[in-house]
Each structure stands twice: as structure tokens, then as C-alpha cells.
């Protein structure tokens, strides 16, 4: 091949490489940008007075007198709305039956839209669900609810050949001529006086428990559950894995049995995680009965089995990478095999072993399938350290799935879901980052 072609090929390959890296970076951006921006919106957002009420009532945080002032101000703005409602109600009484029927239905829609926006109306009985005792917590949601109040969504079925189209009809037009017609422009104009939006940094999203299955509050039980499960898995898997790796590298004699063990280990690494989940249920809970039903212990054990092969492999590689000369030097000084392992080989292999361990920890934190049947519940409070043997726990990975697929108000609380995703990614990234730093520091210490 002549020089020109070679150079051309080199350039072409460089371009190809850069191109693929660019594609990768783009994909990463496409994934990360919404997660980060929407995830942060769970913590930093424009909150309404309803949010501050909720935080004060449920978590006892906030300045009581300032809050009372705010509530008084918003009540003053709302009073007109409620007055209009009662005026319309008395008007409704005086109407003839046909008209009464026609308006009652529409009026009920207005009332429920108002409840969604401002919380229970005067005269309502105490709602059973916490989510109904407060109006909109978040300003952007309040704006959506305002649209629902102002416009009625209708479906156009006129053309049977196409899918029905939605269109919006102003509600105020429906109340033309009644006293309620004034309500709509009033609410539209005074919505911020009624809800008092304000930029908030809601750190409670990380540290609070959830209220009424994630409608309000934070995700601390999930974060804590994730940490418990991952650390618990490490407590079992790390020592076992390192011991197994030492056996494989230092003690095992090459032979049929040993290669069988190695291939068993590799196979275990390739087993899908849902299989581990079912195995955990069948073995740890139903057979060994480590707990009555789901528990952190059972989940940790299941995760430990799952990450064990990775830890063994990483530790094995790290031990094999220790120069033979260290071993010779130590043995040559009259050290026993065990002493050599403990004082020379393991310290030198430590960076690699720890890296493998922390990466496994991240994996254990992120896995969903193994904990579905063994440890995770969708809603629950944070459990104490003493309860890990008996109690199940909410966990980020499982609750992300749950919020996406099973939660009855999933669409209302997308921000919570994004917040959970961001938290999970942050935890895993932090763990991996700490692995990198730890590795660098220990390697530096070893290199002098």
C-alpha cells in the first residue's frame, strides 16, 4: 500500500472514530438532558401556597406566622370565588327544573376543577385522601388545572372515518347570563394571588417521606432502601467474592474441578436478573425462610448472589495482575503463603478489587428484577436499621417502574419519577466516581 492511500485510510478511520464518538455523546445527551432538567424540577420549582401548607402540616417545617399571613392573603383572593359560587347556587335554586339540570352538571365540573386548583371548597366534607386536602402544589400544574377550569375538553366524533379529535370550549360561554360567568375571568386574572407562586428549593424531596403515595413529599424511603439493599448485598458478596478469588488464584490446582468452578462462575454472571429474583423468592424466602415474606435481608442476599460473579472476576483479575516478583520477594523472606497474600498481594491488588466492588455496588443499587419478589414495596415509610431482617422497603429502581406503570396518578407526578431517576443515576455515578478516585489514590500511594 502506498503512502498516499495509507494516510487517506488513517484519516478516514479517524473521521469514523470521531463520528461514532459524536453519535454516542449525542445519545447520552438525549438521555441525560431531560432526566437532569426534569429531575431537578422535582427539587427546584415554583411552589404555591398549597405546597407550603402541605410542608407545614405534614413535615412541620416552615415559618408559621409567615405562612398564616400568606394563607390570609390567598384566602382574601379566594373569598370572591367562593362568594360567586354561593351566589350562583342560590341563583340555581330559583331556576326552572330544565335549566337547573342543565347547569348542575356543568356546575359540578366547575367545582371539581376548582377543587383541583385550590383544594376543598368551603362546605366540603373532610376528604379521605391527603391528595384532595390540598390544591395544586406546583405552579406549572396549577396553570394546567386553570386551563381545565376555563375550557372544557370535548371530542369531535363528526367524521366516523378518522380518530376523534379533541377540541376545547370555553366554559364561561356556557354560563353566559348567570352570575358565575364572572368567575372565569376573575380566576384567570387572580390565580397568582390565590396561589402565591414562588421559586422554591425543596430539599425535602431527598429527605422527606412520601405523602399519599408520592403525590406529595419526597423519596427518602426509596433512597434509604436502595442504600440498605446495595450495602447489604456488598456485606455478603464482597468478602465471599474476595475469598473465592483468592482460592481461585492462589490455592486451586488447575484441573477439571477447577475449570468446572470457573465456568460455573461465568455462567452465573450471565444469568438474567429476573431469574435471580425468582430464585431469591424460592430459595431465601420460601426454602430458607430468612424472613416471613419480603425483607431487606432477602433482597440483599439475592442481589449478593447476582453480583458475586462480577466481584470474583474483578478480584481474580486484580490478584493475577500483582507482579510475580512481589510474591517471590515475600516468600524469599520466609513469609508463609497466607502472610504473603494478606500483607503483599491483597494490598497491591486492592485498587482493582475495590473498583470491582464499587461497580458491583452500583449495579446492585440499580437492579429492579431481583428485588421485585424479595424486598421491594411500592409505598412505605423509611425502615429502621433493626427492621432490615423483617421489613420490606421501597427502593428507587422498583418505584421508578411502579410510578411508570402502576401508579393511579402517574401522569400527575412525572416530576417525582424524574426525580427518582435522577437520584438513582446520581447515586450510581457517585459510587463509580468514588471508585475511580479511590483507585487513583491507592495506586498513587502504591507507586510512591
Amino acid at each position: 500500500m502506498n503512502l498516499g492511500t495509507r494516510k487517506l485510510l488513517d484519516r478516514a478511520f479517524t473521521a469514523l472514530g470521531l463520528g461514532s464518538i459524536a453519535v454516542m455523546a449525542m445519545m447520552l445527551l438525549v438521555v441525560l438532558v431531560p432526566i437532569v432538567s426534569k429531575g431537578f424540577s422535582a427539587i427546584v420549582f415554583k411552589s404555591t401556597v398549597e405546597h407550603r401548607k402541605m410542608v407545614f402540616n405534614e413535615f412541620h417545617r416552615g415559618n408559621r406566622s409567615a405562612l398564616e399571613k400568606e394563607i390570609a392573603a390567598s384566602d382574601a383572593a379566594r373569598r370572591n370565588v367562593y362568594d360567586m359560587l354561593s351566589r350562583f347556587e342560590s341563583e340555581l335554586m330559583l331556576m326552572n327544573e330544565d335549566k337547573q339540570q342543565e347547569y348542575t352538571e356543568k356546575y359540578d365540573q366547575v367545582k371539581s376543577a376548582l377543587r383541583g386548583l385550590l383544594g376543598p371548597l368551603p362546605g366540603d366534607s373532610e376528604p379521605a385522601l391527603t391528595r384532595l386536602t390540598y390544591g395544586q402544589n406546583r405552579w406549572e400544574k396549577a396553570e394546567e388545572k386553570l386551563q381545565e377550569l376555563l375550557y372544557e375538553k370535548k371530542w369531535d366524533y363528526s367524521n366516523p372515518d378518522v380518530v376523534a379529535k379533541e377540541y376545547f370550549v370555553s366554559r364561561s360561554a356556557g354560563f353566559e347570563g348567570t352570575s358565575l360567568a364572572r368567575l372565569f375571568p376573575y380566576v384567570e386574572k387572580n390565580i397568582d394571588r390565590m396561589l402565591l407562586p414562588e421559586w422554591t428549593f425543596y430539599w425535602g424531596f431527598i429527605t422527606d417521606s412520601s405523602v399519599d403515595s408520592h403525590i406529595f413529599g419526597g423519596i427518602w424511603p426509596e433512597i434509604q432502601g436502595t442504600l440498605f439493599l446495595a450495602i447489604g448485598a456488598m456485606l455478603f458478596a464482597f468478602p465471599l467474592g474476595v475469598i473465592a478469588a483468592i482460592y481461585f488464584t492462589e490455592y486451586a490446582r488447575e484441573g477439571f474441578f477447577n475449570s468446572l468452578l470457573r465456568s460455573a462462575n461465568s455462567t452465573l454472571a450471565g444469568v438474567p436478573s429476573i431469574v435471580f429474583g425468582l430464585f431469591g423468592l424460592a430459595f431465601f424466602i420460601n426454602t430458607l425462610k430468612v424472613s416471613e415474606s419480603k425483607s431487606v435481608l432477602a433482597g440483599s442476599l439475592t442481589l449478593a448472589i447476582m453480583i458475586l460473579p462480577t466481584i470474583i472476576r474483578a478480584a481474580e483479575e486484580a490478584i493475577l495482575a500483582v507482579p510475580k516478583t512481589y510474591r517471590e520477594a515475600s516468600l524469599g523472606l520466609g513469609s508463609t503463603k497466607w502472610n504473603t497474600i494478606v500483607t503483599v498481594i491483597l494490598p497491591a491488588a486492592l485498587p482493582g478489587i475495590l473498583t470491582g466492588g464499587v461497580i458491583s455496588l452500583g449495579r446492585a443499587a440499580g437492579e429492579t428484577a431481583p428485588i421485585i419478589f424479595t424486598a421491594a414495596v411500592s409505598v412505605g415509610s423509611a425502615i429502621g436499621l433493626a427492621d432490615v431482617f423483617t421489613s420490606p422497603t421501597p427502593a428507587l429502581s422498583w418505584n421508578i417502574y411502579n410510578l411508570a406503570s402502576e401508579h393511579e396518578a402517574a401522569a400527575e407526578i412525572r416530576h417525582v419519577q424524574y426525580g427518582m431517576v435522577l437520584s438513582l443515576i446520581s447515586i450510581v455515578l457517585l459510587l463509580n466516581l468514588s471508585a475511580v478516585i479511590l483507585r487513583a489514590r491507592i495506586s498513587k500511594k502504591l507507586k510512591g
Partner: protein
Amino acid sequence: MQSSPEVVETSQNASKSVREIYLPPERKKVSGGGVPHVSAKNFSVYYGEFEAVKKVNADILSKYVTAIIGPSGCGKSTFLRAINRMNDLIPNSHTTGSLMFDGEDVHGKFTDEVLLRKKIGMVFQKPNPFPKSIFDNIAYGPRLHGIKDKKTLEGIVEKSLRKAALWDEVCDRLDKNALGMSGGQQQRLCFARTLAVEPEILLLDEPTSALDPKATAKIEDLIQELRGSYTIMIVTHNMQQASRVSDFTMFFYEGVLVEHAPTAQLFTKPKDSMTEDYITGRFS
């Protein structure tokens, strides 16, 4: 066939006479030495089927420096490593015949190889300090053997470093990582580390082959210093080095100990034509 030098073949008296004849005057003064410290009888080392060292008969005299020379792959390192059983690390290796150290069979079934290696220290081809501080490197051996007292350890470290002629260079940075030293310093540290466990024999496996001439000269000086206090065996590729530092020389060829004689004799009047060809550089 007994291929060890006639001088050591029979008794102390015979070796004495040879010392007087062949050793330069400054090398004669070795007190309490000259008895067989390691003796091989029909000693062979196998790697699987391959016989790497073939039926060697030799006596290594105590407190003298014995050099082992020979072309690559001649079994000289294997023989050296058999003495403190470093060959155990190689799977499938085994030995036949006997190799006695202080009247004990080195490869005996009940020989404690850990105790043996404590008495027979080794310095390797490539400097191999542990990735620890200089102090910890040298204290490693004594700590293994149960010395915990800080004062005692400090004493041992200083003594060993002084013996290895390294104390003046590193006394102010004992807590620094040993891997930060130069190659020559690292190798002298390995000497000091080995000396710290107070061995009786020092096995040196091409200790200067990874070093520059200056560092090599220092190591050779060090070997001169240690001569008379330890039985030293040094494997080397460098014939000048063998003639400079050793009292006796063994020449190996293809696993066979061809000639074993006082160095001055071996390099001036080799008995075997093969030895002559090798030392005159006809093959290497």
C-alpha cells in the same frame, strides 16, 4: 562423576590448601568458613519431563562467594532457586537426588520451607521492593518473624541499611515509598531487606543485570563487604563480574555442572575445554 572441585571434595584441609594456592591474598582471610554449607548429591531438577539441572554434585563452602556462570538456559538459575525452594512456585517441578543444607534435606518431606527461606535469603534479577515505605520494606521480614517492638525494628532497619551501604542515602526518607528510589538503590534495598532477617546464605540471581554500570559497581562492592559474613552464591552472565567478586566458580552447561573450581583457577587454567571455550567467548 563428582564435578565439584577436588579441593572441596574431601575435607576442610584440602579446601584450605587450595585457598592458599589460588585465592588472592585479601580473599584468604575468612574465619570460621570453608565448610560445606550446601551440598548437592546427584541432584536433579525437573520441570515436568524436562531435566533442567542434571545430577549435580557440589559442595558450596560457607562464608565464600560462589559464582555460577553459563549460557542462558543452562540451569544455573534453576539450581540457585532450588536451594531455597523457590522452584516450588513453578507447577510440575520436582527434584531427585539430595540437596543438603546444614545437614538437612532441603527438599525433604518434612522440611519447613518457610524456615528454610528465612535462613537462605534471595535477591532477584529485577529489583522488587514492595510498594511500601523504605522502612516497611526492610521491617517486613523481621515483623513476619515476630518482632513488633518499634525500637528493635528501627535498630534492625538501620543496621541492615548500613550493611547494604544505603543508610546515608535514605536515612532521611525512610517513610517514603521504596518505588521512588533509583534502580540501584532499589536493588540495595532488596539486599538490606534480605539481610534484615539474618540469613546464613545469600542467593543472588543476576542481581546486577537490570542495573547500569555505576549501580553494578556499588552492588559488587557490597558483595565484597558481605563476603566473609555470609555464604554467597551469585548467578551471573557477566564473567568479569564472576572473576571480580567470587572465590569459587561453577560453570553450568545444559544442566550439567561442567566445572567447579576456585575462580582464579577456573578463569586461568580451566580443566574442561568447554569451560575454556565459554570463558574465552567462543560461545555464549
